[in-house]
């Protein structure tokens, strides 16, 4: 039942998280200095820490203003504050959950007949004015300090950017802590008098009922940050506060300091101890503190770009939000009390000191403090979680290893296949090239053969012609002189045979590689012998060779014999076979 009533507070916490986290990380996330996910994690952790560790201070003041001593009343008050915030936001009026909740509590005070402590109220209202002003003062001082430091230090801009990123995170964490500490009172403050009296002992630390309430409130703010703050952060970062990283840093720090000052009881005590008046521990509006800080930086820069209409709207918010919340709260309490017969206040106990005794009126609450020792279950829980985590990690690691090995081997196989395919294509290419070259060689050989044959035939014909002419010359009645001329011409033709020359050049050109190989093996061969070898390679007979070389067949035979000797061939060795193998 308590949890059901708490839901209105949690709704308030959710909306606070969604809206106010933007004040802390808006400029950092909007300007892409910090990733949204990182901002969410840090903001959530520190909001919860702030709420649990330091949330009590501001809540006490709320309690002094009016202790909502019935759970029904607390539910209605928180709901009215939430609805007012929602409604005012729809009307685009700057609104603060702090002001809404305080207005709603005053509404409860009016309805329950509880006297509103004017001194406390005055103190609270004064902090609403002091919050933005302090924000502005802090921002100005911090900005001047930072500028002074940066001008002296001469840090490289890129390095400064890295420092600023970390500083934004650290200061954002501080801001989130302060937000949790200061504003958790808005969320769950009214439920404190109605909280079940629990005491959870975790062994290492213990949480009482109020701290648990703050933890739940902090978690609701964190959920708001995680689920719905991105859009607001982007709006704040890109539209409302287009600031340099340094200015953003200063503004967030100033804002966090204001929230911290108004929520730190130890700081207040310290100030009191040196004889100064205590700092009122009041939930101040995070948005107003940040707007104050922006105005401060704006004023420092000469007041350019300050939108004074925003200032006017903020002032309007200070006045209208509490009044509307108070009125809505009063009306709702009346409605809840008379229509739903829900107990919204406890008439027997309106004094501030009677907070704990109120709990007796609630049927769900225990008569005595519930002291639950959670040390052992927590320890076992942690051990079980650790074991599970270790098992999962080991499985994941093995899986990853196997997976990476698989991937590696697949990669290697793929690589080899690609190489194989490449080599195959290369091989086919080379083979086809070789086949073409073979064809070409064959063709050239045939051509050589044709030329050789034509030379041989021509020589034979000329020889025949010479013999015939000799026969004619030997006859007595022939014109001797004319025939002699004819013979002379033929002989000349035989010796200056262009065809033969061309053939020889051709043979030399084609057999260049062959000559190279031949000389490598038999270095002492003369040019003529090399030529002879080339002719032997063509498988020509001695007679044909003789006509090509324009020598007698016998000379060819002699030359062949000499060649065999130079090549150190035995009787059984075939010259043409050996040459063709080269």
């Amino acid at each position, binding site marked *: 039942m308590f949890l059901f009533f708490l839901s209105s507070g949690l709704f308030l916490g959710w909306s606070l998280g969604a809206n106010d986290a933007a004040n802390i990380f808006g400029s950092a996330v909007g300007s892409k*200095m910090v990733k949204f996910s990182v901002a969410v994690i840090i903001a959530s952790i520190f909001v919860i820490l702030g709420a649990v560790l330091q949330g009590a201070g501001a809540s006490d003041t709320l309690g002094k203003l009016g202790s909502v001593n019935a759970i029904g009343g607390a539910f209605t008050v928180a709901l009215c504050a939430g609805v007012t915030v929602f409604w005012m936001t729809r009307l685009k009026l700057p609104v603060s959950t702090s002001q809404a909740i305080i207005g709603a509590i005053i509404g409860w005070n009016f309805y329950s007949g509880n006297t509103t402590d004017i001194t406390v109220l005055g103190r609270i209202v004064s902090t609403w004015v002091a919050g933005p002003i302090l924000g502005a003062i802090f921002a100005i001082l911090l900005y001047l300090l930072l500028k002074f430091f940066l*001008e002296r230090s*001469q840090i*490289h801009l890129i390095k400064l950017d*890295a420092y600023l*990123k*970390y500083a934004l995170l650290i200061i954002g964490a501080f801001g989130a802590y302060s937000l949790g500490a200061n504003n958790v009172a808005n969320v769950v403050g009214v439920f404190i008098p109605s909280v079940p009296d629990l005491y959870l002992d975790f062994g290492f630390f213990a949480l009482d009922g109020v701290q648990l309430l703050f933890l739940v409130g902090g978690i609701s703010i964190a959920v708001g940050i995680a689920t719905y703050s991105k859009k607001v952060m982007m709006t704040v970062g890109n539209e409302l506060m287009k600031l340099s990283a340094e200015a953003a840093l200063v503004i967030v720090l100033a804002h966090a300091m204001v929230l911290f000052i108004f929520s730190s009881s130890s700081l207040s005590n310290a100030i009191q101890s040196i004889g100064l008046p205590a700092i009122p521990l009041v939930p101040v509006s995070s948005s107003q503190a940040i707007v104050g800080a922006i105005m401060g930086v704006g004023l420092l820069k000469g007041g350019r770009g300050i939108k004074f209409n925003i200032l006017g709207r903020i002032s309007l918010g200070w006045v209208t939000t509490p009044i509307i919340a108070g009125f809505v709260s009063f009306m709702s309490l009346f409605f809840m009390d008379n229509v739903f017969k829900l107990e919204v206040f406890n008439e027997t106990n309106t004094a501030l000191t009677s907070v704990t005794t109120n709990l007796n009126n609630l049927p769900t609450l225990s008569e005595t403090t519930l002291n639950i020792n959670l040390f052992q279950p927590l320890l076992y829980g942690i051990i079980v979680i650790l074991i599970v985590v270790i098992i999962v990690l080991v499985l994941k690691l093995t899986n990853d290893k196997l997976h990476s090995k698989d991937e590696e081997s697949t990669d290697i196989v793929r690589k080899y296949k690609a190489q194989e395919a490449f080599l195959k294509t290369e091989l086919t290419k080379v083979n086809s090239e070789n086949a073409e070259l073979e064809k070409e060689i064959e063709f050239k050989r045939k051509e050589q053969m044709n030329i050789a044959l034509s030379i041989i035939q021509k020589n034979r014909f000329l020889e025949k012609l010479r013999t015939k002419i000799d026969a004619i010359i030997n006859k007595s009645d022939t014109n001797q002189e004319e025939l002699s001329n004819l013979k002379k011409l033929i002989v000349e033709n035989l010796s200056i045979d262009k065809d033969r020359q061309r053939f020889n050049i051709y043979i030399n050109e084609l057999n260049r590689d062959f000559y190279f190989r031949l000389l490598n093996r038999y270095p002492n061969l003369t040019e003529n012998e090399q030529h002879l070898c080339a002719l032997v390679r063509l498988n020509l007979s001695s007679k044909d060779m003789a006509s090509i070389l324009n020598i007698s067949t016998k000379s060819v035979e002699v030359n062949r014999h000499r060649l065999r000797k130079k090549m150190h061939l035995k009787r059984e060795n075939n010259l043409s076979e050996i040459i063709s193998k080269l």
Partner: protein
Amino acid sequence: MIRIFKTSKNVILNIDEYFDTVELGILNFKEGINNYLEGNLSEFENNLDKVNKQEESADAIIRKIENDFYVHSLMPNYSSDILSLLEKTDDIIDKIKDNLSQFDVEDPYFPEDIKNDFSRLVSLSVKSAENVIPAARVFFTAPNLVKDKLQKVIFYERETEKLATKIKRTLFKDMPFLKLSEKIHLRYFTLHVEQVAEASKVVAKLLSSLVIKIKM
């Protein structure tokens, strides 16, 4: 987030290396043109070769820097301005390379009377570029000091412009022995050299607006 310091250190080193390369390019340009005017063509070829390599290296470094800026979202508020500053600085070395290539390809004829003035023109134009690089360097560490250095850039750019006009006037009015085609050819080369100073002026203007932006 954790690697951000390592990345920023790398980017700083790359930016320094980039400016070093551009500075060396500028020096080679000056030396190259003086070698050309003095007829030391082999030395000129050497300078041209060096400038080509330096231009390529500057391009490679700028690509690395751009990549780091985008991947690690460095200085998100000013990244585009800083990258455009580096790009505009790259224009200087691009112009230098183009200029030397034009000398190599077109082989312009410089009459003796004009060689001195042309050499001075190159020296003034180069001084403008030489002064803008330290200004760009100091922008990253002490933006307040940028303004002082930029004064020199603007001064040398104006001097370059004046001398270029004088050279063009001499070409067209006092050198009747030159053909019109030769005069026009030399006018183009005067313009090309002037462009180096103009590119430096563009960088200077960008720098001064960036300083204001960063201070805001």
